[in-house]
């Protein structure tokens, strides 16, 4: 009898369904997967090292580019970490604005996930509907911050500017219309037999395994673990909002899909609440050491001009120490670990990217399944390589 060998297939880094530049080396017995080895690093830009040569303010734009679908959430985690290091408070209005933007961004990030996930499984129409809604969010971001993909809206001590006139109506319109759009997606997917066949019982990861692999976010909650940083360690006034954490039961692709859909609805509810209860007041803390003075004062007041110049050129010196802050980004717990040596630049910034840890559970998930399941499993853990490789 002839010797039988396994077939090794290189999936990626150039592959339409590996969500960027992930490379998987699959060992196949026919179409059944025997072993998977993920290779990463094709999108490495050295964000952590770059941060060491920039002042604390200058690091904010770098964080936008980690998980480029979730820029607001990345900003938020970083500024929270620096604020913790400095020990300064943030005005209530700024906190609410941060929540508002972070939740809108979460919806936008989940929309990209839903579209690409459905596209991978072959339902290509949904992508365009998702991008239609995402476009509305990006338009809101553009008006609020000036940027669409990389808004860099958060500042240490608050946010860069207050909401422009008329934007609340636009956000309200979006919030009102969005639940109907989710129903539309569900008609195309949740009620589709083929979709159910492709997602139910596929890529299962148990509760224990999910915890052991360090998974977080919707991918963990799909397995039935009720862990959400927003509830477990509330930050930025999340404790004042009413929302629930949807969880799955089996831990398959379908559960993770349903969890994210429900999460979009809750995010929508949070946005609505934030708009309703938006307090009045300043949007950035007034700390002469740390935050920039109001723009109008700079042209009239010499003290304000000096303050602006000092902060913009050399930044500020936080006390020596180290902090860790985790926030619930769209993919899971995004953590920033900052070490300060008392200078105006971080000595070390370490990022805990949720996608990296979620990806590490992929080989476990797809062991013994078919090539087609690899695609749905990759889609369901919602990885973004910009964050994994950093």
């Amino acid at each position, binding site marked *: 009898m002839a010797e039988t060998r396994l*077939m090794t*297939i290189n999936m990626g880094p150039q*592959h*339409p*369904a590996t969500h960027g530049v992930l490379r998987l080396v699959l060992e196949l017995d026919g*179409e059944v997967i025997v072993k998977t080895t993920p290779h990463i690093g094709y999108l490495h830009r050295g964000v952590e090292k770059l941060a060491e040569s920039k002042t604390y303010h200058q690091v904010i734009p770098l964080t936008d580019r980690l998980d480029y679908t979730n820029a607001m959430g990345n900003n938020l985690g970083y500024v929270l970490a620096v604020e913790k290091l400095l020990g300064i408070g943030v005005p209530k209005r700024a906190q609410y604005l941060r929540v508002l933007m972070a939740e809108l961004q979460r919806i936008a990030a989940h929309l990209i996930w839903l579209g690409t996930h*459905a*596209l*991978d*499984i*072959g*339902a*290509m*129409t949904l*992508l*365009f*509907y998702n991008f*239609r809604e995402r476009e509305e969010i990006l338009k809101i971001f553009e008006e609020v911050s000036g940027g669409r993909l990389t808004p860099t809206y958060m500042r240490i001590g608050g946010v860069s500017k207050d909401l422009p006139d008329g934007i609340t109506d636009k956000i309200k319109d979006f919030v009102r219309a969005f639940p109907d759009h989710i129903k539309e997606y569900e008609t*195309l*997917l949740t009620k*589709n037999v*083929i*979709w159910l*066949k*492709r997602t139910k019982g596929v890529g299962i990861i148990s509760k224990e395994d999910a915890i052991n692999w360090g998974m977080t976010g919707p991918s963990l909650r799909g397995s039935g673990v009720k862990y959400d940083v927003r509830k477990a360690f509330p930050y930025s006034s999340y404790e004042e909002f009413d929302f629930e954490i949807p969880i799955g039961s089996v831990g398959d692709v379908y559960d993770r899909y349903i969890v994210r859909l429900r999460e979009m609805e809750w995010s929508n509810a949070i946005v609505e609440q934030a708009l309703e209860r938006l307090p009045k007041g300043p949007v950035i803390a007034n700390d002469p050491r740390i935050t920039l003075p109001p723009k109008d004062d700079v042209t009239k007041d010499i003290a304000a001009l000096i303050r602006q110049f000092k902060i913009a050129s050399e930044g500020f010196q936080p006390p020596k120490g180290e902090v860790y802050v985790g926030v619930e980004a769209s993919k899971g717990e995004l953590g920033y670990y900052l070490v300060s040596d008392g200078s105006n630049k971080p000595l070390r910034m370490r990022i805990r990217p949720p996608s990296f840890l979620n990806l590490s559970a992929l080989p476990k998930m797809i062991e013994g399944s*078919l*090539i*087609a*399941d*690899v*695609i749905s499993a990759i889609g369901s853990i919602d990885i973004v390589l910009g964050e994994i490789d950093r």
Partner: protein
Amino acid sequence: MQLLYLLIEIIVKCVVVFAGLMIVVAYLTWLERKVLGHIQIRYGPNRCGPFGLLQPFSDAVKAFFKEDLVPGRSDKVVFVMAPMISIIAAISIFAVIPFGNQFTLPGTNWVVKLRLADVDIGLLYIFGVASLGEFGIILGGWSSGNKYGLTGSLRAAAQMISYEVALGIAIVGVLILSESLRLTEIVRLQGGGFWNWNIWYQPVAFVLYLICGLAEINRTPFDMPEAEAELACGFNIEYSSMKFALFFMAEYAHMVTMGAVAVTLFMGGWQPIIPQLSFIPGIVWFCAKLFIFLFFFIWQRGTFPRLRYDQIMKFGWKILIPLALINLLVTGLIVSLKG
């Protein structure tokens, strides 16, 4: 003299049918992108000519000018032949499709029949040639020396063979009713109004035909051999330039033939909906009915996700084939009881 006229007639018909089919195929790609575009809230091609109508020609020019790459590790002869097999098979099916009845040339008494060949075993010929076309896909994927291509062609082999069985058995129901393999005969028996169409007498066979037909022509949800998300295009991954375009044309030509056979077998061919409308030429009816099928093929592509390979095989062997057999049994029983 008579023979010469006959020869001229045949040549003219061949050219007209071939050119017509090619134009339909070209505009089918346009139609697909346009319909999908509107399903997906975008415009589709609208730059080349009015409504993007010149897009197929610009695509053809582009395909011709692309570099024609033959991978070093491929089996070169088979690699070059595979797209030809595909396209030849897809086109030759049209030789037996009747698109209309017949008409007399004005000014003469020469009767032109609107079909290329009217063979006794028309249906058998169609299925024989259609299966030949699959060799193109299987050989193409296998010969390109690429693992994705190989996987694609293996899937193609398994899927097409199993769905052809169900397709064949489903069609036998129609054959029992019409007692002929000759397509013109099948169409003639469905004349006299839409209530005589086979679709009412063989609804199960019709649905089976549509499903298996989709699998035959590799459309979503059965586009396993291609499966762009998993196999990065599957069997045609190494093909470029005009060879790729040939595969593409073969797929669309196959789509047209699948539609045309469905019209012939189930929708009364060139016959009008009601006899009172018979002043409209048969070919118009034929095209209108064909369009319904083509639209269906495109429409469902914009709606359905892709099935998994093992699910497709299960669906084929465990649901479609038993269903087709039951349909055959019931049809046979009813026909034999009626005498």
